[in-house]
């Protein structure tokens, strides 16, 4: 609650000190009607069922905002809705908050799956597999091992934190290490996303997701 006026003052001061077009002759600008208030965007790192949410904007990039622990999932009006508990960073207060899954982005862990795949055939025994410099020309040949992803490595959630007026869009990535449960939950979320997209039966994937979320971390 106290943060917002401070941020406004900071933005105003910095905008005066460092105008965006200071390098150029600023053109005659016409303020446009604001079509709709933009959502704030934040980044989330998911470990187990907990998402640690941080700022992405330039004001305090990387500053923690809150932690959101997912406890359950349901389909509401054709979308996956999550229920959970939100705890503000540095605070003790918690609140029950619902989040909606907006969309996903698939990211293969290795964009060059050929490089170390089983289908790469060796014409001669390579006792010491040669490895060269990795650059634009050679990255297809010298990438790391193939990893299996879930198919929905980035998740986009929307929720409204109790201390914010506007809903927040959170782009969530998985913590890459020591996160077997998070990976399992992500895979279950992705199965639900696939079922929603294809119109398949949701009962089984949703049940599996809720089963995973109900387990203690």
């Amino acid at each position: 609650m106290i943060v917002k006026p401070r941020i406004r003052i900071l933005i105003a001061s910095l905008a005066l000190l460092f105008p965006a077009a200071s390098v150029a002759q600023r053109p005659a600008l016409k303020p446009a009607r604001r079509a709709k208030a933009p959502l704030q965007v934040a980044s989330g790192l998911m470990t187990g069922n907990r998402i640690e949410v941080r700022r992405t904007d330039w004001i305090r990039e990387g500053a923690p905002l809150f932690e959101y622990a997912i406890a359950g999932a349901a389909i509401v009006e054709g979308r996956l809705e999550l229920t959970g508990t939100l705890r503000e960073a540095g605070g003790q207060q918690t609140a029950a908050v619902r989040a909606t899954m907006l969309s996903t982005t698939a990211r293969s862990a290795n964009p060059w799956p050929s490089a170390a795949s089983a289908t790469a055939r060796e014409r001669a025994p390579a006792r010491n597999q040669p490895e060269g410099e990795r650059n634009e020309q050679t990255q297809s040949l010298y990438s790391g091992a193939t990893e299996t992803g879930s198919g929905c490595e980035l998740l986009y959630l929307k929720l409204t934190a109790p201390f914010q007026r506007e809903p927040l869009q959170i782009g969530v990535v998985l913590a890459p290490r020591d996160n077997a449960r998070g990976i399992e939950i992500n895979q279950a979320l992705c199965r639900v996303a696939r079922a929603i997209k294809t119109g398949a039966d949701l009962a089984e994937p949703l049940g599996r997701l809720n089963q995973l979320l109900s387990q203690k971390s």
Partner: protein
Amino acid sequence: MAQKVYDAIVVGSGATGGWAAKELTARGLEVLVLEAGRKVRPEEEYNMVAWPYEMPFRGFGNRAELERTQPIQSRNYACNEYSRKWFVNDLENPYTTPPDRPFYWIRGRHTGGRSLQWGRQSYRLSNFDFKAKSLDGYGDDWPFTYEELIPYYERVEEFVGISGREEKLPQLPDSVFLPPMNFTCGEWKLRQAVDRMRDKWRRVTIGRVAILTRPIHQGTPDARAACHYCGNCERGCDTNSYYASISSTLPAATRTRKMTLLPNAVASHIVMDKRTGRARGVHYVDGVTRAHREVFGKVVLLCAGTLESTRILLNSAPVEGGTEGLCNSSGALGHYLMDHAGGGGASGVLPGLTTEYQSQVGRANGIYIPRFRNLDRASKQAGFLRGYGFQGGANQPVQMAKGIPGFGADLKRKTREQHPWNINLGGFGECLARWENHVRIDRDVVDAWGIPALHIDMAFGDNERAMIEDMGNTAGEMLEAVGATEIRISQGPTSVPGILIHEVGTARMGSDPKTSVLNKFNQAWDVGNVFVTDGACYVSSANQNPTLTMMAITARACEYIAEEFKAGSF
């Protein structure tokens, strides 16, 4: 106060935006360039001579931070501790895909755009590419010929500076070249071995690259120094020896006093005049204050990068009559997305050369083998259409030390004394233009400025998969021909679309307004004062790296715009 109306608004300041600004201002037009990202200060931000031990994370970067903020960008080889600042924050700049269909959208938002960290490989297309449909019946021809583009290739090459070796190959026309970089011993051997294969289409040449091998434009304000071969191009070049718009075309435009460059202006959509049906200007969001603004111009050029330009058009009009976006009466906007297909090739060890260390550090270039498939009856392939080129090289990489057996003092001694030669070839294959590979607006997800994000749906098909299998076979046979040992061939699966950063298409040119978005001068069929001159205009992907062609097309479109201004069309 009267609104200022520019002659032209150029969206984007990268390779094509820089060319548009230079061409139009040189012809007397007053130009506003909108750049979504911040202004780069080369004197403070380039770090080409920093050693790993000077970096907090020894050049690799903070992995946790990279994973958290750049989960897509960090998959690119150049997004490391030195240069991650040239890549976007993925969560501020989101896009979505269907589950299980990944696409890597690699982006830079700052003055100069991706021209700061591009691979610099520069190849002309030929009529094998521009008239491909006429040769094999698939897809569509481009609406102009190679001969029509030659003057513009020459104009770009003379200003930019392309080093390379003349080969007189019809499938890869020669450029106006600066002296070529030299082959290594291993690459000479490969060239000779491939010549002995007596395939008239197959040739090993040095990479044609936008890096200066001698100073150019000396005695003029456009003067740039020759490369000093530090090899760290992606960190930014203090001597401006490779082409980046920030050090060549944009300064040239600035000197005319006809260009205004506005950084931190995140273009959202084109503002239309409903009365005339023409564009009035561009709506943007201030990247810092997030205030919404509009600027006005007689002509709007989208040079924001293939997918960003299409996103702006898609966001410029609501869904009407079943189609989404501005300039989309054909319904083709967003469709025919392409990227080169990789994943096929071979690597091995080259015996018979000295294992004493021959200093090759710093040649930011490799070799190139142009397309040799499906060019005539003899090279015709039953399994796939079109073709692929190889990039690679032969050198003594320090990484080879990992393969030396042993341990302790003996291993250290061998590592100092033995520098075996590695040889590698990686294919870049043409991706056929398919309607189903497309982008649209994801109405649920927005970027940090509240602008709806793109949904990208692309996968390679059977043709690319067959081509990649052939890449493995032909790369393997060439390495065998040169006597390489320990050959390992790769035949797929394919690379993930987007990772080669040669994404093109989605607002294609054509001769028929019913099936294309732009005419032969990159002018939108539907809105005559909107032009798209970046990779979005591509009709087919060819297999050559696309930036040189994009710049030549931009120069041609700008000449047309200037002529139309003279004729009073705008």
